[in-house]
C-alpha cells in the first residue's frame, strides 16, 4: 500500500453531473473534505431528470475521503428516494471499500433535536434550580453541624494539621492584601469626610467617622469580601477538582469522611482566622484615617488616639469583630458546598466557583444588613 488513497494533492474539481442519456451520470474529481461545501452546493442545484435505472460512472474520481464518500452516499440515497435505482461503476477498489464502509456505518437519520425550551420553562427551571440549591445548602449546613458535633464529642477526630494549614493560607497569607485595602479604605473615608467636616469646623469628628465606620461595618465587610474571593473560590475549585478526579470517592472508600477531612478544617480555620484578620484590618483602616486626618485636618496622632477611645466603644468594636465568625462560616460553607456540587466537567468547576464567590458575597452583605436591623432593634 504505497500510494495515497485519501489525500492526493490534486485540485480536480469534484463533480457529479448527468450524462448523455437520462440513465447515465458521471462522477469525477477529488471527493474530499475541503471540496465538500462547493460540491454540496453544486449537487443541490443539479437535477437528474428521468426515472428508472441510473448508472454513475465514477472512474474519474481521483481522491476520496470519508466525508466525500458520505456525500456520494447521501446523494445516491436521495436519488433512490425519488425512485431511481442507482448503480455506481468504475469506482477504484479502495474508494469502493471506503464507500461500503460508510454505507455500513452510516447512522440512521437522526432524531430531530428537542425543541429549545420557551421563556416560561427557562424561568421555571432556573427558579426550581435555585430552590433546590437553597435546600441543598441547608442540608449541607446540617451535615456539617452533625460532623462538628461528632468531632466535638470525640476531639481526636479533629484534624489539626489541615486546620493550621488553612489558618495559614486563608488568614496569615491574606494579611498583605487585606491590610493594604483596609488602609486605603481608611484614607478614602477620611478624605471624603474631611471635606465636609472642615466646612462645619468639626475637624475632630473625623475620628468618630473613621473609627466607627471602619470598626463596626467596613472592616469586617471588606475583609469578608476579600476572603470570599480569595479562599471561598479556592475551596470550591479544590473540592470540585477532587470531585472530577474521583478523589472524593477515594477518600470515602479509604474510610475518611470528606466532611472531616475537607470541610471541617476549612470551616474551623476560617472561623478563627477571619476575626483575627478583622482586628488587623480595623487597625490598618484606622491608621489610614489617622494619616489622612493629620494631613488634611491637622488632627495629630495623639489627639486622634485620645478621641478614638471615646468615639469607639468596646461594644461597637466587639459587634464588628463578632460578625466576622458568622461571615467566615458563610464563606466556608458556601465554598465547600459549591465544590461538592461540581459534576464531571472542567466547565462545571468554573461555573460553581463563580457561583460560590457571588453567593457568599451576597450572603455576607445580606447577613450584615440583617445584623444592622437586629442591632437597632436591640438598641445596641
Amino acid at each position: 500500500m504505497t500510494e495515497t488513497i485519501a489525500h492526493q494533492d490534486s485540485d480536480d474539481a469534484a463533480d457529479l453531473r448527468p450524462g448523455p442519456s437520462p440513465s447515465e451520470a458521471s462522477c469525477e474529481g477529488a471527493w474530499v473534505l475541503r471540496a465538500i461545501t462547493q460540491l454540496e452546493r453544486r449537487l443541490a442545484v443539479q437535477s437528474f431528470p428521468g426515472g428508472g435505472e441510473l448508472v454513475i460512472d465514477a472512474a474519474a474520481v481521483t481522491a476520496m475521503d470519508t466525508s466525500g464518500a458520505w456525500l456520494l452516499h447521501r446523494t445516491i440515497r436521495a436519488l433512490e428516494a425519488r425512485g431511481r435505482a442507482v448503480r455506481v461503476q468504475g469506482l477504484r477498489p479502495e474508494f469502493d471499500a471506503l464507500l461500503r464502509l460508510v454505507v455500513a456505518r452510516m447512522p440512521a437519520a437522526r432524531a430531530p433535536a428537542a425543541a429549545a425550551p420557551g421563556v416560561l420553562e427557562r424561568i421555571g427551571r432556573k427558579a426550581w434550580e435555585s430552590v433546590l440549591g437553597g435546600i441543598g445548602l441547608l442540608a449541607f449546613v446540617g451535615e456539617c453541624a452533625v460532623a462538628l458535633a461528632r468531632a466535638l464529642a470525640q476531639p481526636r477526630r479533629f484534624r489539626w494539621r489541615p486546620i493550621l494549614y488553612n489558618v495559614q493560607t486563608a488568614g496569615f497569607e491574606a494579611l498583605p492584601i487585606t491590610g493594604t485595602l483596609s488602609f486605603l479604605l481608611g484614607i478614602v473615608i477620611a478624605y471624603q469626610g474631611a471635606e465636609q467636616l472642615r466646612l462645619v469646623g468639626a475637624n475632630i469628628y473625623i475620628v468618630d467617622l473613621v473609627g466607627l465606620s471602619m470598626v463596626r461595618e467596613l472592616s469586617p465587610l471588606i475583609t469578608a469580601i476579600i476572603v470570599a474571593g480569595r479562599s471561598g473560590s479556592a475551596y470550591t475549585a479544590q473540592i470540585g477538582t477532587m470531585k472530577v478526579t474521583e478523589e472524593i470517592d477515594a477518600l470515602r472508600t479509604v474510610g475518611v469522611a470528606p466532611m472531616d477531612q475537607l470541610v471541617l478544617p476549612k470551616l474551623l480555620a476560617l472561623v478563627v482566622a477571619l476575626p483575627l484578620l478583622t482586628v488587623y484590618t480595623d487597625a490598618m483602616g484606622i491608621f489610614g484615617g489617622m494619616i489622612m486626618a493629620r494631613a488634611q485636618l491637622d488632627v495629630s496622632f495623639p489627639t486622634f488616639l485620645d478621641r478614638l477611645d471615646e468615639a469607639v466603644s468596646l461594644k461597637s468594636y466587639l459587634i464588628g469583630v463578632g460578625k466576622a465568625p458568622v461571615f467566615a462560616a458563610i464563606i466556608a460553607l458556601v465554598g465547600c458546598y459549591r465544590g461538592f456540587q461540581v459534576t464531571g466537567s472542567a466547565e462545571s468547576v468554573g461555573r460553581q466557583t463563580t457561583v460560590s464567590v457571588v453567593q457568599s458575597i451576597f450572603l455576607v452583605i445580606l447577613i450584615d444588613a440583617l445584623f444592622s436591623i437586629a442591632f437597632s432593634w436591640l438598641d445596641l
Partner: protein
Amino acid sequence: MNAATPSDAIVEVRGLHTRFGPAVVHEDVSFSVRRGEIFALVGASGCGKSTLLREAIALQPPAAGSIRVFGREVVGLGDEEALPLRRRWGVMFERGALFSALTVTENVGMVLHEHTPLDARLIEEIAALKIALSGLPADAGPKYPNELSGGMRKRAALARAMALDPELLFLDEPTAGLDPLSADGIDVLVRNLRDALGLTILMSTHDLDLLWRTADRVAVLGEGRILGIGAMSELASSNHPLIREYFHGPRGRAAREQAWKQK
C-alpha cells in the same frame, strides 16, 4: 510492503535524545514509520513511549535529535508553524482528553468548525458519520464525556482524531483501561481504519493482543534505546533478554497463542 525509501517514511526519528533533569529517557533513538503501516512502540512503563509521541506531535521538544513528519522537521516548531502539519494528523490521547464542556458531537464538530468552511448542518452530519465510524452508537452523540464509559470515551476521542480525515494517526495507549471486549473492538477498528482509509498509524501500547493482531512493525524501547524493531514474529524470536522477558512472560505467550488461533 516495500522497503522504505526516504519519501516513503511518514515519520522519521533520528538520533533522538530526551532528558528530564538528570533522568535520561531517550538516548539516540532512531526509526522510521512508512506510509500505510501500523507501527507500535512498546516497552515497560516509564520507558518514554508517550514522551516520544508527544515529541512527534510537537507538544514537547527533545534535548537533541530530529523528528521529521511528512518530511518536515517537527523539533522546535511553535504552535503556529505546526498548524499545517497538525491538520494532517490526528491524535488520540491516553485518557481521551475530550473537552468536558462539549458533547461528543460538538467535540468532533469543533475541529471541523475550526478548520473548514462547512456550515453547521454539514458539520453535524459529518460528525455523526465519524462517531458512527468509530463504532459508537448514534445516541452517544449528544452525550457529554462524563456520561460515557471509558471505552466509549476512547472511541469518541478516536472520532475526534479522525475529524479532518488525517493521513496519520497518533494513538497513545488505545486500549489501556478497557475491558477485553472493548479492546477487541479497538483492534478491529484500528485495522479497518488503516485498510479502508489508507491511514498510517503510530501508536504506543502495552497491549500484546493489539500488537499481535494489528501492528505491522513494532519497536521495543528500553534502556533509552530501541532494543529491537521488526514484525512481531521476528521480535518474538529475538534473543535480547529484555525483549524475551517482554514477549515471553505468561501474558505474552497467551496473546501469541490467541493470535495464532485467530489466523
